[in-house]
């Protein structure tokens, strides 16, 4: 049954059209807006003022550093914990209550929107949150001020933890499926050739699931770089994460801030993409 090129074109055309118009078009309009071109109003005063405005934002560098820190830490921690959890889960017998509970929670957690994770993080981790109350009950602290500042803090620990809470199950489920496709036998073969459990994982299993994990980490990194609601609910007043900064500028009452807000979003996205590409080539380059 040969498939004609025309029928394949018909199959992909709607997706290409919709993504091309909405995503590609949106991106193009965004870029135009940042350089002073508004085709719908007929304004063509090309300038880089928006980018200059972004470059001059007070506290911009602190925001950039914090955003990169949050995205990197969230990605690394999610991958580390998620992969370990998946490996532990695979080693556990199939029918234990604990194994089934973890698997269920992994999947259930995937359905929880990020905004709930952010709210849960605040209620759990703030200095008067549930953990602080437990610590007080145990006599570990004498008041909220003794509890470490885990949310609304300058290192954005609460933001990172909210992301990690959301992404660990994602990594876990992906890793389980990757491990299942590799199977147990390569690891066992390595063990019988004298590799320890860790060596077998490090040198045999991990290299085989690595491409999947890189994809997984890429998604988390890009997501943590561009999401508004989690840092908006868990972040400190200063410094703000870039998506929060961009959103606030976009909706401020001076319309003149808009091109700069868009420029900030685009620069973040471009820088993120650059980091992802660099990171990927570094990881794939380090493979041998």
């Amino acid at each position, binding site marked *: 049954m040969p498939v004609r*090129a025309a029928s*394949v074109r018909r199959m992909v055309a709607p997706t290409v059209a919709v993504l091309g118009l909405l995503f590609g078009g949106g991106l193009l309009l965004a870029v135009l807006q940042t350089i002073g071109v508004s085709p719908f109003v007929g304004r063509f005063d090309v300038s880089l003022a928006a980018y200059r405005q972004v470059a001059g934002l007070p506290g911009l560098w602190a925001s950039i550093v914090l955003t990169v820190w949050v995205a990197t830490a969230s990605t690394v921690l999610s991958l580390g914990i998620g992969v370990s959890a998946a490996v532990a889960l695979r080693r556990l017998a199939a029918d234990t209550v604990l194994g089934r509970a973890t698997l269920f929670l992994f*999947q259930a957690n995937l359905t929880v929107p990020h905004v709930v994770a952010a709210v849960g993080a605040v209620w759990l981790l703030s200095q008067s949150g549930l953990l602080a109350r437990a610590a007080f009950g145990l006599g570990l602290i004498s008041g909220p001020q003794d509890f470490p500042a885990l949310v609304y803090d300058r290192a954005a620990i609460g933001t990172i933890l909210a992301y990690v809470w959301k992404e*660990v199950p994602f990594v876990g489920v992906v890793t389980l499926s*990757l491990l299942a*496709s590799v199977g*147990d036998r390569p690891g066992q073969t390595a063990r019988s050739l004298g590799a320890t459990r860790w060596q077998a994982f490090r040198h045999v299993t991990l290299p085989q699931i690595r491409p999947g994990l890189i994809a997984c980490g890429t998604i988390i990194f*890009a997501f943590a770089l561009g999401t508004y*609601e989690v840092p908006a609910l868990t972040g400190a007043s200063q410094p703000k994460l870039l998506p929060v900064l961009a959103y606030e500028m976009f909706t401020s009452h001076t319309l003149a801030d808009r091109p700069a807000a868009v420029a900030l979003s*685009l620069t973040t996205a471009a820088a993120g993409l650059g980091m992802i590409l660099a990171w990927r080539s570094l990881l794939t380059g380090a493979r041998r």
Partner: protein
Amino acid sequence: MTAIWSIATPVGDKPATVPSAAPTKRRAGLPLLLLVAWLVVPLVPVVLWSVARGWFFPALLPAEISLAAWARAFANGSDVWRALGTSVGVSAAAAALGMLIGVPAGRALGMHAFPGKRWVEMLVLAPILVPGLGVAMGLHAVMIRLGLTGTAGGVVLVFLVPVLPYVVLISASVFATHDRAFEAQARGLGASSWQTLRHVTLPMVAPGLSVAAAFAFLVAWSQYGLTLLVGGGRVITMPLLLGQSIAAGRNDLAGVAAVLTILPGLAVLVLTSTLLGRGGRR
């Protein structure tokens, strides 16, 4: 329950069930117990707040349990009813539209080689790698002009940007493992191309596609920034209602909104895995 989302990653064809890996090591128990606790604990205050009244530091449990917030949520014409309706409607519409548009592309990517395939793949992957806020900001002016801002229709339209990649990628992986020999067999036995689709192809790919649909629904259900930007405050979904309750400083109402934001997703999960379970355990 099998890991129904495992299909989301186009790797291998085996489901991510927990195998009886040998030898069984109980040492994995403690870390996993901690993991389970870590997964559950943040949801504890969420549920407690929904029935709490006057819950101040250092009380570990609410001094008073009150169903006032719940009563308010389920009162006639409450914000919660409206937001639930909006969320369900907008997410279902985005998922349905996404499936209609994305599944054929998934089939093409999963089963055929064609010129420009790499470009199509890149276009599909791009929205996952590029945060949507900038794109939505770019679209904003056009959408205002078309009268789409502040409308559910406009929100559904921009939701296609995050939804389509998942639909296309998941259905591509479904079709990639689908053996076309079965279709050839059916055609050889006298089935028309429509009959083949109806009686052979669809039943075989249905479980995978239902996962794609569930994923699409959940991706749309979780959106926040895009809804805020394009909905302009007039399209209030459950996540936004939760954000508003937090901004109003009403933790009890926020607790109710949070619980109601989680439940439909769980329902979709259970529904999907039950459906998949019925069609033979994967």
